[in-house]
């Protein structure tokens, strides 16, 4: 698999802090407990970690960067 330079940078960091996993687990169990059919299923369940620790932070970072750029302009 050909990895981009951005990916190589991520490789050097090697891993995600354990505390992030714990936070994601607490959020998952809390939401899952109250909305069982939404998260406690085989589609949303395995994807939750990716959504919580990669997709949401990436989207937020993108929005913040865009907002900062606009402010500077």
């Amino acid at each position: 698999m050909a990895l981009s330079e951005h990916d190589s940078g991520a490789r050097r960091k090697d891993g995600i802090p354990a505390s992030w996993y714990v936070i994601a687990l607490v959020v998952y169990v809390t939401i899952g407990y109250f909305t069982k059919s939404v998260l406690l299923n085989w589609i949303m369940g395995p994807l939750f970690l990716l959504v919580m620790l990669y997709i949401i932070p990436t989207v937020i970072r993108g929005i913040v960067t865009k907002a900062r750029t606009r402010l500077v302009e």
Partner: protein
Amino acid sequence: MSWAAHEFENYFIQKHIGTKASFIGVVLGTQLPDMFTKAFVYTADDPAAFHRGWPGVGFSHSLLFGVVFAVAILAITRSRGWALGVLIGHWAHVLTDVADTAGVMIFFPFSTEPITISMWKHAAVEGRYGDAAAYYSSLGGVWDLFWLLVTVIFAWRALTPSYFREIVIPADPYVWGWLHRTFRLPERGLLLLYQGLMFYGLGRMIAWFLYARFDAQAPFDPSWGGPEYVQGNDISDAGWVEVLVRTSIGGALFVGFMWLCWKVFVKRLWERGYDVPAAVRGTGIHAVLELPSSARRRAEKSPDGDVKQM
């Protein structure tokens, strides 16, 4: 039925197959028995008999069902890693489900006798939520905990970024590469996708356990064959001698049938299949599993003694 155990066992298997089978294939295999049937189980008149018996969809929990899928995948994709992954994953699911009262028809169609050690009750008759409450009030929940501990203690390395990079991706570079390109996921994203199943297993184990204790308020009954408040769901009333005889005959016929299939066409399919460059197969059991002795055997055979550790 087992719940989170089917998620945890994937990583335990991964630790023992190394680059010899695809992790995604293993995941597909472990989900295969319930993939097309589980949705109908809770609405069936007799859920246990429908899920594990014959007539019903119990054939999905037989060893032959996994073989049929694995051979089909080998014939279509020619990928040995995928075929092996699906087979190992499926068989792991089947063997794990031996522990509930409904059991599994391991040697179907050569024997329709379910094999069970009746550790906890198959409680699908209670509906999905009732099933969860019963499972996490019985030895079923302990079974999940057992698999979690086994995975964390003996296969923790399989969850690390370096293992994912050096073993999991090289074992299936095409699919991980496709995910990387199609969804623009960097290695960090792929790692989270890989670890997601472990996370899901742990998360749902805790959430359903809390549901059983505080919402359903089901009595905690980790006794053999519990919980007592659920109706018995044995789908066979045969005595142990009858089970032993029928299973022995079924097992012998199954082995004979497998041998015949191997000689007639599976061997040919295997030989025309391909391995990814990272997969180093030994002979016998070392062709499938990455055991400590596999590396030693390679070292003995290799003239320069260059051994790649898995």
